[in-house]
């Protein structure tokens, strides 16, 4: 068996569904059902989170391979099995998902009043899909989770969203689905070559460079939309604006990481030659993403849209890091993904706090909140600073490591890719200045209340994480050091083999 002594990953993945089933059985008055659903969902997600801490404790960080592996033969004749496992790259994302879910449920406690049961159910299903996706070690299993994530998210936006929720939800669904279909094709192709969908085997299968190119493009179509990379990002602002706060939190916190995770898990290790071939293309798109979306963020009048665009810029840094193929770049990308998961989630929650009170996201409708909401102002300031990468907060470490990694490629890549340091400061400080600073003049803001105990409970873990990740990031990078080292080595070996082969052929 594995280190845990029981199939922990399967349990983590499907336990939320058990909670969901309990929620479904509750009958009675609407208020009772709603309260029951809330508590059940909260407890389920907390139990799952507590369980996931076993991974934190028992994970062997000196081992760069997969751990806690479980495997059940499913379609043996086709080489398909139900296989789960985590390595240094995925384990922290499992923890991120299990940590953010209870926070989301708590954040929806009062703001969701209609169809609470279904809402909580959707979140628990979503948790199953997210955790399953990060644990899957079989491509087909991965693909199913990867696609299934769309369904609860689609419902969350489409049912509990803002005025244009249906448009946003359909756009989100179709856009990301269209990309994924090409990945399915690639999956079939790979299966046809390797006769298995075992990810570990596929990682060590050498596909011909020509085939890699096509497979890479197919993967790219799927992952680039999910990241989202410029110019496939336009679904994101719409989805964020219309989604309920918790939807935005999970979308920015976890769902955006799926694309980058895909690049790390599939594109780079399985298709090393194509990854190198396309790297300049990725750099270009990423640099454009950083500068372009930062500028667009600057022109926003809607708080959520501004943060949504900033997410695209931050993810641009991630894609640069992944495609530097060196330890600093990839570690930086991973760290940036994690820190963005925490910080952007927190920023959406910050928007949610004032939205719940005033019911608008117009930046100009606010101003001077610091007088009435000092605790909120402090919290918001911390996350603002983390978002613009102040050293000592989570945002700095990843961004800086990517800058170092990119420097090995070129000065310009690293400087332009880090332009977000400047532009990010401009739009985030603009937002902060307009919303929190200034004179409190608007009448309806005069009676606004500071953070409630429930909100403090939501923010406290995120504040702690942001500082912890910034001051002692080693406790996180330690998890993936070995795995990243191994991945980079594997990549270099594969590239060397190809060029040797090319030499022989010539």
């Amino acid at each position, binding site marked *: 068996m594995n280190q845990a002594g029981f199939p922990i990953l399967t349990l983590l993945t499907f336990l939320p569904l058990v909670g969901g089933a309990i929620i479904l059985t509750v009958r009675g008055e609407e208020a009772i059902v709603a309260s029951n659903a809330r508590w059940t969902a909260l407890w389920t997600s907390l139990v799952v989170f507590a369980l996931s801490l076993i991974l934190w404790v028992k994970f062997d960080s000196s081992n760069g391979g997969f751990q806690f592996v479980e495997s059940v033969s499913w379609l043996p004749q086709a080489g398909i099995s139900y296989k789960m496992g985590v390595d240094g790259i995925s384990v922290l994302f499992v923890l991120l998902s299990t940590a953010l879910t209870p926070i989301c449920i708590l954040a929806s406690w009062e703001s969701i009043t209609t169809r609470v049961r279904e809402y909580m159910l959707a979140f628990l299903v979503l948790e199953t899909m997210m955790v399953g996706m990060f644990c899957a070690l079989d491509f087909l299993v991965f693909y199913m989770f990867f696609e299934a994530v769309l369904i609860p998210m689609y419902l969350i936006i489409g049912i509990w969203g803002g005025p244009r929720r249906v448009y946003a939800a359909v756009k989100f669904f179709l856009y990301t689905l269209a990309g994924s279909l090409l990945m399915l094709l690639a999956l079939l192709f790979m299966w046809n070559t390797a006769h298995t969908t075992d990810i570990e085997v596929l990682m060590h299968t050498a596909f011909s460079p020509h085939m890699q190119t096509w497979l890479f493009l197919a993967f790219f179509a799927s992952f680039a939309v999910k990241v989202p990379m410029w110019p496939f990002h336009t*679904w994101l602002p719409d989805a964020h604006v219309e989604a309920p706060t918790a939807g935005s939190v999970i979308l920015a916190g976890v769902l955006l990481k799926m694309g980058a995770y895909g690049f790390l898990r599939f594109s780079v290790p399985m298709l090393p030659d194509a990854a190198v071939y396309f790297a300049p293309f990725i750099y270009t798109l990423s640099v454009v993403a950083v500068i372009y979306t930062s500028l667009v963020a600057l022109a926003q009048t809607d708080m959520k849209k501004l943060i949504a665009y900033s997410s695209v810029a931050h993810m641009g840094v991630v894609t640069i890091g992944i495609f530097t193929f060196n*330890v600093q770049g990839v570690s930086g990308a991973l760290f940036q993904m994690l820190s963005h998961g925490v910080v952007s989630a927190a920023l959406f929650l910050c928007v949610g706090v004032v939205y719940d009170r005033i019911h608008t996201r117009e930046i100009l409708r606010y101003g001077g909140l610091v007088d009435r909401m000092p605790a909120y102002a402090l919290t918001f300031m911390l996350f603002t600073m983390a978002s613009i990468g102040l050293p*000592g907060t989570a945002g700095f470490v990843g961004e800086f490591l990517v800058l170092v990694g*990119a420097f090995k490629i070129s000065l310009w890549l690293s400087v332009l890719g880090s332009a977000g340091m*400047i532009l990010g400061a401009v739009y985030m*400080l603009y937002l902060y200045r307009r919303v929190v600073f200034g004179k409190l003049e608007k009448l309806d803001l005069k009676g606004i209340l500071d953070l409630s105990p429930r909100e403090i409970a939501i923010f406290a873990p995120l504040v702690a994480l942001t500082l912890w990740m910034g001051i002692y990031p080693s406790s996180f990078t330690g998890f993936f050091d070995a795995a990243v080292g191994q991945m980079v080595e594997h990549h270099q070996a594969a590239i060397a083999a190809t060029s040797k082969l090319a030499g022989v052929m010539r």
Partner: protein
Amino acid sequence: MLLAVAVLAPLFGSMIAGLLGRAIGDRAAQAVTILCMLLASVCGVSAFVSLVYGSATPGVVVLGEWVSAGEFHANWALRYDTLSAVMVAMVTCVATLIHIYSIGYMSHDKSIARFFSYLSLFTFAMLALVTADNLLQLFFGWEGVGLASYLLIGFWYDRPAARAAAMKAFVVNRIGDLGFAAGIALIFFIFGSIEFSTIFAGLSQHVNDVYHVLGTDFRAYEVIGILLFIGAMGKSAQLGLHVWLPDAMEGPTPVSALIHAATMVTAGVFLMSRMSPLLDFAPGAMHFVTFMGASTALFAATVACTQNDIKRVIAYSTCSQLGYMFVAAGVGAYQVSMFHLLTHAFFKALLFLGAGSVIHAMSNEQDMRKMGGIWKMIPLTYVAMWIGNLALAGVPPFAGYFSKDAILEAAWASHSLVGHYGFWCCLIAAFLTAFYSWRLLIMTFHGAPRADHHTMEHVHESPWAMTVPLILLAAGAVLTGFSFADQIIGEDWHAFWGDAIGVAASNHILADMAAVPAVVSMAPTVLGLLGIATAYAFYMVWPAIPGRLAASLPGLYRFLLNKWYFDELYDATIVQPASRLARRLWRIDGEVIDGMPNGVARLTADGSSQIVKLQTGSIANYAFAMLIGVVALVSLYLIVG
């Protein structure tokens, strides 16, 4: 250990005042932060004394691991050598005095605990900066002081000008920081480490390394030097990236004294000294440093002559003096630049606090045109300002005389073209410095009272909390010059600095300084006195002259009054185009980029309504379609397979 207490005590004070300020009240918050600062300064001074005059040895205290990825490592660590000890002692002392001063200055403010919390937070970040053992921690402090500066400039957040100034300071600094961060990345790229000892140990191995950029191969050390200096330019307000400093005067005056005169803005100079072993091998970059420093010194001095806001005059003066320091660093006289940094910290903090005392007395008036005739009413402040200005103008035996003279000597002794450019710029600036200092002194204190009756009635000397720091800083402005000159920049500088400042074997600028002609040594003092005399003539004897001069040279006057139009230039070339571009890109994002998938969706919808017509219900049609599909698939399989 002493060093650790000195660094961490302000952080502790800041946390208590910031997080518990509401619970424990303003007085308790003040008490806690000031006690922490007193503790820090006692520890800081003892650490300095025991290192330089006692038996303590330099070393590094590792507090913990910070960032680690592959071979990239950075620790939380405190470096204990003369350079850091001297800075810690200076920063803790000045910061403590300014904390005390703020009791009086901020007594009418509504958020005192917040102010003291920020002030202590700043002190902590500054101490983390100067005690860093690697470039990343230095960057941590660098950004930390930037944050504190942002918070303190914008302390009065209900004033639009303060908010704008805070944001401007942060963003302009960030431009420099990006260069600095890239410099750190390049150092890691070349040396495989960002720890000072490892970098300096590897200097001789990499001296001929090249880095390819802009289509050419440059010596890596030169590129590093330029990148680090870009960082320094932002923080130390050098020409081009200086625009934030005058605006930063929107912050409360103690903030201007601590951050924008004595400590934070000198971080760039400190960085040059810290990296001196490497920079000595980057002559090209150092020429650039000298050039920029000299230009800044002259530029800022010219602007200071026409400003009317008392704090802005001093702000431009700071900008100019920072230029002097970079001239010294640029010609390789790092010890001299550090010496000027120290003396400047005392007399410039004194000047700002003196100005604060004036503003306090004048019911928050900052315009010198509305002052005058108050020297008898606030005699202590008046004397303090005299001492500060004498030190600034470089009149012997005040502190500035020793350090500023040494800079001019060093510039002359460098015997390079750019060194001489530095010499002449600084010489002219020395005249202007004395001129604007006495202009300030006379306009503020002398002549007929120009304030309204009501204000004049309330003019009063400041409370003890404000005057005691003034007296102590005035003592510093008198004493630090002659008591330290021989140790810091004398022939035996090695005994003082140890290995903290390392210069190449070919660098003997300190020895050459002794050999400069007497006329060179005398020149700045003479010009300084001349400047004082001119100001006296212009503003005391014939007060009509300045007005007539401005009227006869309207173009030049407006050019200087508007600070060489830098703000307007940046607004027209960067800020406006960027925001126009932002709005345009946003439109493109909505119409073009989002238009594509939406267009596809529309096409699909239209297409499917056409395809619906294919559903005829006739089995023959379906069978035919299926057949075509099978043929297509088979042929595809044959072609690919």
